[in-house]
C-alpha cells in the first residue's frame, strides 16, 4: 500500500490529537532505557478526557448480529477495552470473546488506511474526493444494475442504502453468513410469519437443542449463555436439564447433561417422536396430533438409530417439564432438510405449550431472505444484469462455498466497490475500496430486536483516513443528483441518525428530544419492552424423510466455532490463539474423527487426511475426538482465507469448499465425503492441551444433583458414590496445617504486613462455567498479554494468564463421554510454592493476600514456574512485547499494566491495577472499598457470571459467601498451598463417572 496524500493516522499524529503523557502506553517495558520523550498537549482540552483516568462510552458491538451493548474504556483518547453495557438488556454488562476482540478490528494493522483504486491489478491510494467522484459517476450510470450488498447492518444505514439503491432502480441485497434462513422459512410455514422468535433459556426447565449451538454462534449467544446459566446453573437445589441432539459434540453439547447423536439427517423424526410423547400427554391441535401420530418411540428408534429407551425417557422428561424449550437451526446440523427440522421443533414447542412463554414472537421486526437473495444476486451477476455493486460488511466470496461460483459471477460486474475495513476476499476482487470507519469511530445505530434500539457513537478519532460509509453514500447521492439526491439528503450521517432517533423519540412519547438523545448516548441506546405477539398454527406439515446427504462414506459437517464465527474473526490474533473451547486447537483448522474411525483409517493426531466430496476436496490434520459419531467427520469454519490480513491469509483450508450450494431457502452445511489418508504427511496441531484426562486428580470436580441438593460436600459426595475416602490428613499433617496458620499470622505482623488488610479471593462456579473462553480474551485485553503465534504455541508457550482446561470423563467402556471445563489462573496461594524459591523476591506475598509478581525485579530463573503446581506462570521466552503489537495494535495496550520484557516471568495478578485504581478512588473519597465496586477482567466478562471476585475478609462480600458453599473445593487441596481461588463443583444430572483414583498412568495420553 502506498501512502495516501492525506497521510494516514500515524502514531505521531495520533498523539497530537489525544495528547497527554500516558499515551503510547507501557510499550517500553521492564528495564529498557528510555529515549527522549515528548509531551504533546491537546490543542483543545476535551472536558471528558482526563489523562490518567479512564473514560467510558456506551456503544454497540458489531462483531455478530446479536448487537450487544458495550462500554468502551478509553484512556487519553484511545479505546483500550470493550466491556459489556450493564444497561443493555442483551449483554447485561457482559461480553463474549468475539466482542472483546472488536478492538483488534479497530487497531488491526492490516486495515485499509485510505480509499484505494485498483489500476492494472495494483492498488493505488486515492483521495476521498476522487473516490466519491468515481462512485458518483459509476453509480449514477449504473441505474437498475446497481446492487448494494449489506451484511448484518440494520437501522438507519440500511434504510439509507435501500433508498440510494432504489433511487437508481437498483436493489439492496441483505445477506449475512449464518443468517437463520431455515428458521424463517419454517416459521413462515408453521405460523405464517417469517420472523424469528426469541428464546427464554432462563425460564426453561428442560432445554432440548437439536443442532442449535446457542452458546457459540446461533442466535444471541451471550444472552442465551446468561439464560442458560440462570436455568442450568445449580441454584437453590435445582437446575434445568439440557439435552443436545446432533452429530458432534460442540461447546453447547459439552455443557449438556446428555448428548444424543442420531443418524445424521434423521433429527426430524426424533423431534417428532418427542412431540408424539408430548401430544400423547397433553393432546393439542388435531393437525398437530395427525402430524406426529406415527412417530412412536419404536418407529423413531428405527429411523434415528437411537435406543427406544432413550427416546422414550427424553420425550417423557420433556413432556413432564414445564416450561420446556426446544431449539433448532444451528449451522453445524443444517441439513438440506433444515426447514423441516425447524418446523418440527416449532410443532414440538407448540405441543409443549412453550409458544409465548419460552418461545416469544414479535421481537424480530426484520423478516427477510438471506441465502436465496445472495444466490439470486449471483445469478444476476452471472447473467450480466448487474453493472455496479457495493459490498458492506459482507464477504460472500469467502463465506459462500466455492461451488456457488460467486467470485466468477462477480468478475462479470464492471464496477465493484467494498467498504471493508480489511482487504477481504471480496474486496480483493473489487475495483474500489472505500474503507468504512470502525464501529468505534462512527455514528451508527441498530435495532437488534423490537424495543431495543442500540446506538453507536465515535469514541475516538479515526485511526486511519477512513470515511463513514453513510457519509460517503450521502455525498455520492448528492453528486449524482436527481432522485438519489432527493432520496438521501442530509448534511451528514450523524444528522440522519439523529433524525431517525427523533422519530423514535416521538414514537416512544419522549417529551424533550435532547434529554432522550443524551440518555440514549449515556445508556448506549433506548430499551423498551416489546409486546409478545400471539401466534397460531398455520400448518402442521412436516416431512420427516431423512435428509438426502449424498453417497459418500462419511457424513461431513462444517461448523462455526465460537471464536472465528464465519471467518470474520480470523484476523484477530486474540481469537486465533484463544484455543477452541472444545478441541483446544489454535492457529489452524483440523479434521475431527472419532477414535474408532481413526483406528479404522489408521491415522493419528496430526496426520493429514484428504476429504473429497462432490463439490471439492480438502486436506487437514486429524484431530481424534471422542465427541463425534463414528460415521461423521467435521471441520471447523473460518480458516482458509486467501486475503484478510497477515493473521488470516493462508492459514488452513476453508471447509466450505466441500459443500454444494443448491437452490433453496438455506445453505446446507452438511454433505458426505470420502476420507483417505495422505501418506507421510503430518502437521502438528498447536494444541494448548497436554493430557486430556485428569487421571483422577480431582481438578475438575462434579457431583450429582441429588447430592448438591442435599448439601453434601465434595468429599461426602465422593464417598457416597462408593469411592475410597478422599485425601485424609495424618495427625502430623493436621498439626502442620495449624502451624501454618500461626506462622502466617506471625509473619503478618512485620513491616507492611501489620494491621488490617483485605484478602482478595476468587470463586469459580463450575456449574455455571460453560468454557466459552470470554474470560481469556478479556484477560488478554486488560493485561497486555502478547499473542505468541503458532510455532510458540506448539512449544507450549502461550501466555494465557487464565486458561480453560477441558478434561474428558468417561467415553470408555460404554460410559457417556463428558467434557468438564475448569478455568485455571494463578491461585494466589497463601503458602505459595512459587514464592520462597525466587532468589530475588520477584515473587512474594503482598499484605492484601496477592501473590505478587514484580516484573522489573525478575531475573528469570523460572524456578517459580517449575514449582507452581497449577502451572499458571508464563515466561517471556522471546521479545513477545515487540512482536505481538505491530502498530497500531500497540495503541490498545492498557497504560496501567507494564508490558513485560523478554526474560521475565508473568502471571495472573488478580488485575492488581484495578485493585489499586479502586483503592485510589476510595481513598480520595475517604471511604472504604465497597464489595462489587470493581471486579477483575475475567469476572467482568463472564457471560454466565461463573467468576466472582472480592475481599474474603469482608463478611458481607459475595465471594466469601460463595466460598462457604458445600460445593466449594480447592484444586490439588492435598498440597495445602492455601489457594485464594475456590471452585464450586459442577453439578451433574447423572452420577459422575467414578474418576479412576490412584495410579492413572495407563490412562495418560
Amino acid at each position, binding site marked *: 500500500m502506498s501512502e495516501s496524500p492525506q497521510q494516514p493516522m500515524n502514531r505521531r499524529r495520533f498523539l497530537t490529537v489525544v495528547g497527554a503523557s500516558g499515551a503510547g502506553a507501557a510499550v517500553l517495558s521492564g528495564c529498557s532505557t*528510555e529515549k527522549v520523550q515528548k509531551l504533546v498537549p491537546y*490543542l483543545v482540552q476535551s472536558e471528558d478526557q482526563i489523562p490518567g*483516568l479512564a473514560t467510558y462510552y456506551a456503544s454497540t458491538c458489531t462483531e455478530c448480529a446479536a448487537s450487544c451493548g458495550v462500554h468502551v474504556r478509553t484512556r487519553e483518547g484511545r479505546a483500550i477495552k470493550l466491556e459489556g453495557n450493564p444497561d443493555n438488556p442483551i449483554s447485561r454488562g457482559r461480553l463474549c470473546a468475539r466482542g472483546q476482540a472488536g478492538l483488534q478490528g479497530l487497531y488491526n494493522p492490516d486495515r485499509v488506511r485510505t480509499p484505494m483504486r485498483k489500476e492494472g491489478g495494483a492498488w493505488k491510494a486515492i483521495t476521498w474526493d476522487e473516490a466519491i467522484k468515481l462512485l458518483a459517476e459509476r453509480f449514477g450510470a449504473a441505474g437498475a444494475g446497481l446492487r448494494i450488498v449489506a451484511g448484518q447492518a440494520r437501522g438507519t444505514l440500511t434504510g439509507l442504502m435501500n433508498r440510494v439503491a432504489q433511487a437508481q432502480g437498483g436493489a439492496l441485497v441483505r445477506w449475512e453468513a449464518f443468517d437463520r434462513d431455515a428458521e424463517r422459512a419454517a416459521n413462515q410455514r408453521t405460523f405464517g410469519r417469517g420472523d424469528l422468535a426469541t428464546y427464554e433459556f432462563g425460564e426453561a426447565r428442560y432445554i432440548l437443542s437439536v443442532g442449535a449451538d446457542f452458546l457459540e454462534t446461533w442466535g444471541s449467544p451471550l444472552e442465551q449463555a446468561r439464560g442458560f446459566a440462570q436455568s442450568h446453573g445449580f441454584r437453590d437445589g435445582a437446575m434445568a436439564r439440557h439435552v443436545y441432539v446432533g452429530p458432534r459434540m460442540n461447546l453447547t453439547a459439552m455443557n449438556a447433561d446428555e448428548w444424543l447423536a442420531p443418524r445424521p439427517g434423521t433429527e426430524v423424526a426424533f423431534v417428532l417422536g418427542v412431540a408424539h410423547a408430548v401430544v400423547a400427554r397433553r393432546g393439542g391441535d388435531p393437525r398437530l396430533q395427525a402430524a406426529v401420530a406415527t412417530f412412536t418411540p419404536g418407529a423413531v428408534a428405527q429411523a434415528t438409530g437411537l435406543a427406544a429407551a432413550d427416546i422414550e425417557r427424553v420425550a417423557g422428561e420433556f413432556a413432564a417439564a414445564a416450561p420446556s424449550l426446544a431449539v433448532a437451526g444451528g449451522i453445524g446440523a443444517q441439513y438440506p432438510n433444515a426447514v423441516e427440522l425447524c418446523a418440527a421443533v416449532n410443532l414440538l414447542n407448540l405441543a409443549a405449550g412453550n409458544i409465548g412463554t419460552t418461545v416469544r414472537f414479535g421481537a424480530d421486526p426484520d423478516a427477510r431472505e438471506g441465502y436465496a437473495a445472495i444466490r439470486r444476486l449471483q445469478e444476476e451477476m452471472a447473467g450480466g444484469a448487474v453493472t455496479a455493486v457495493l459490498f458492506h460488511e459482507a464477504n460472500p466470496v469467502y463465506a459462500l462455498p466455492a461451488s456457488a461460483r460467486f467470485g466468477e459471477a462477480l468478475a462479470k460486474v464492471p464496477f465493484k466497490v467494498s467498504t471493508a475495513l480489511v482487504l477481504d476476499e471480496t474486496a480483493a476482487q473489487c475495483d474500489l475500496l472505500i474503507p468504512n470507519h470502525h464501529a468505534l469511530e462512527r455514528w451508527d445505530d441498530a435495532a437488534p430486536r423490537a424495543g431495543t434500539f442500540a446506538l453507536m457513537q465515535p469514541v475516538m478519532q479515526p485511526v486511519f483516513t477512513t470515511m463513514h460509509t453513510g457519509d460517503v453514500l450521502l455525498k455520492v447521492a448528492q453528486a449524482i443528483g436527481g432522485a438519489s439526491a432527493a432520496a438521501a439528503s442530509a448534511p451528514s450521517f450523524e444528522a440522519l441518525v439523529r433524525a431517525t432517533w427523533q422519530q423514535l423519540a416521538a414514537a416512544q412519547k419522549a417529551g424533550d428530544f435532547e434529554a432522550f438523545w443524551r440518555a440514549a448516548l449515556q445508556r448506549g441506546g433506548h430499551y423498551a419492552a416489546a409486546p409478545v405477539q400471539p401466534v397460531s398454527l398455520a400448518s402442521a406439515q412436516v416431512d420427516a424423510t431423512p435428509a438426502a446427504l449424498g453417497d459418500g462414506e462419511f457424513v461431513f459437517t462444517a461448523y462455526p466455532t465460537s471464536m472465528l464465527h464465519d471467518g470474520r474473526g480470523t484476523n484477530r490474533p486474540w481469537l486465533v490463539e484463544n484455543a477452541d473451547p472444545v478441541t483446544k486447537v489454535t492457529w489452524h483448522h483440523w479434521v475431527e474423527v472419532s477414535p474408532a474411525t481413526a483406528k479404522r483409517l489408521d491415522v493419528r493426531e496430526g496426520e493429514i487426511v484428504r476429504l473429497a466430496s462432490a463439490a471439492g476436496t480438502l486436506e487437514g490434520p486429524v484431530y481424534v475426538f471422542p465427541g463425534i459419531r463414528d460415521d461423521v467427520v467435521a471441520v471447523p469454519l473460518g480458516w482458509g482465507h486467501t486475503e484478510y490480513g497477515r493473521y488470516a491469509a493462508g492459514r488452513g483450508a476453508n471447509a466450505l469448499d466441500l459443500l454444494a450450494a443448491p437452490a433453496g431457502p438455506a445453505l446446507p452445511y452438511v454433505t458426505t465425503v470420502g476420507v483417505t489418508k495422505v501418506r507421510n504427511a503430518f502437521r502438528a496441531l498447536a494444541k494448548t492441551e497436554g493430557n486430556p484426562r485428569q487421571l483422577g486428580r480431582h481438578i475438575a470436580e462434579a457431583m450429582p444433583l441429588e447430592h448438591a441438593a442435599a448439601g453434601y460436600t465434595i468429599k461426602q459426595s465422593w464417598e457416597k458414590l462408593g469411592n475410597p475416602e478422599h485425601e485424609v490428613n495424618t495427625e502430623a499433617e493436621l498439626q502442620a496445617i495449624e502451624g501454618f496458620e500461626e506462622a502466617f499470622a506471625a509473619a503478618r505482623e512485620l513491616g507492611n504486613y501489620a494491621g488490617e488488610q483485605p484478602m482478595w479471593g476468587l470463586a469459580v462456579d463450575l456449574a455455571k462455567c460453560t468454557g466459552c473462553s470470554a474470560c481469556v480474551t478479556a484477560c488478554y485485553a486488560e493485561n497486555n498479554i502478547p499473542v505468541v503465534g503458532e510455532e510458540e504455541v506448539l512449544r507450549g508457550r502461550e501466555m494465557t494468564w487464565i486458561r480453560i482446561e477441558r478434561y474428558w470423563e468417561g467415553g470408555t467402556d460404554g460410559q457417556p463421554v463428558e467434557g468438564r471445563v475448569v478455568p485455571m489462573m494463578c491461585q494466589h496461594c497463601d503458602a505459595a510454592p512459587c514464592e520462597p524459591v525466587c532468589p530475588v523476591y520477584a515473587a512474594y506475598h503482598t499484605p492484601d493476600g496477592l501473590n*505478587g509478581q514484580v516484573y522489573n525485579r525478575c531475573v528469570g530463573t523460572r524456578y517459580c514456574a517449575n514449582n507452581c503446581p497449577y502451572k499458571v506462570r508464563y515466561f517471556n521466552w522471546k521479545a513477545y512485547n515487540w512482536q505481538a503489537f505491530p502498530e497500531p495494535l500497540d495503541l490498545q495496550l492498557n497504560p496501567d499494566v507494564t508490558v513485560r520484557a523478554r526474560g521475565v516471568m508473568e502471571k495472573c495478578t488478580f488485575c492488581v491495577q484495578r485493585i489499586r485504581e479502586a483503592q485510589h478512588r476510595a481513598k480520595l473519597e475517604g471511604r472504604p472499598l465497597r464489595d462489587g465496586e470493581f471486579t477483575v477482567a475475567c469476572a467482568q466478562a463472564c457471560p454466565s457470571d461463573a467468576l466472582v471476585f472480592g475481599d474474603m475478609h469482608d463478611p458481607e462480600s459475595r465471594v466469601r459467601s460463595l466460598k462457604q458453599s458445600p460445593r466449594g473445593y480447592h484444586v490439588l487441596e492435598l498440597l495445602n498451598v492455601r489457594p485464594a481461588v475456590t471452585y464450586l463443583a459442577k453439578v451433574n444430572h447423572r452420577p459422575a463417572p467414578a474418576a479412576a483414583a490412584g495410579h492413572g498412568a495407563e490412562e495418560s495420553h
Partner: protein
Amino acid sequence: MRRVALGGTLAIVAGVAVLVAAGSRTEAAAPQQATAPATPVAVPWPDEGTLKGPKQPIYFRHDVHATQYQIQCQYCHYSVAVASEPGIPSMQTCMGCHLVIGGSDTTSKVEIKKLRDAWNAKQPVEWVRVHYLARHAHFPHQRHVAKLGPNACATCHGEVQRMPQVFQANNIRNMGWCISCHLEHGVSRDCTVCHY
C-alpha cells in the same frame, strides 16, 4: 603467638563488619533543593543553552508564571489532584492568556509569537519531557497530592517556580528516592503498590 592469632581474627571480623554495615543506607539521598536563581530576571534572557535542563521548543519560564504572576501549579497541571497523570495544559489554556498578553520585552514577544503561530497552525508544541519514571513504576499523583498537600510538588520536582527552565532537581528515577520518603512517612513500601 596468641596476639597474632587475635590480630588475624580481628581483621576478619572487621571484614565481615564491613559487609554487614554496607547494608546501611549509604545511598539514601536527602532531597537536595533546586539551586535556581532567586529572581526571574537574573537569568540569561533568552536562554543560550547555559541553563540546566533540556532546551524547550518555547522558552517557557516557570519562574515568571509561577513566581512573578503567582499562577498555581494546578491551574495548568489540572488533573494532578484527581488522576495519576498531572496533565499538561492544552494550547487553548496557554492562549487563554496569551491572546491578550503579547510579552513585555522583545525576547518574550519572540517566544510568545512561537506559541501563537503554533496555535494558528493548529500544531501543538512538543515539549521535551523532563520528569518521567520507568514504565514499570506507577506513580499516582493524586494520592501524593492528597497526602502531602497541593504544594507538595517541590518534594520531588524541586522548586520549579524558581526555575527559568525546568530540570530534574532530584533523581526521582532512583527507587531509593521513593523508598526513603515512604519510610519517612510510614506508608507502605509493598512492591505491588507501584509495580504492576
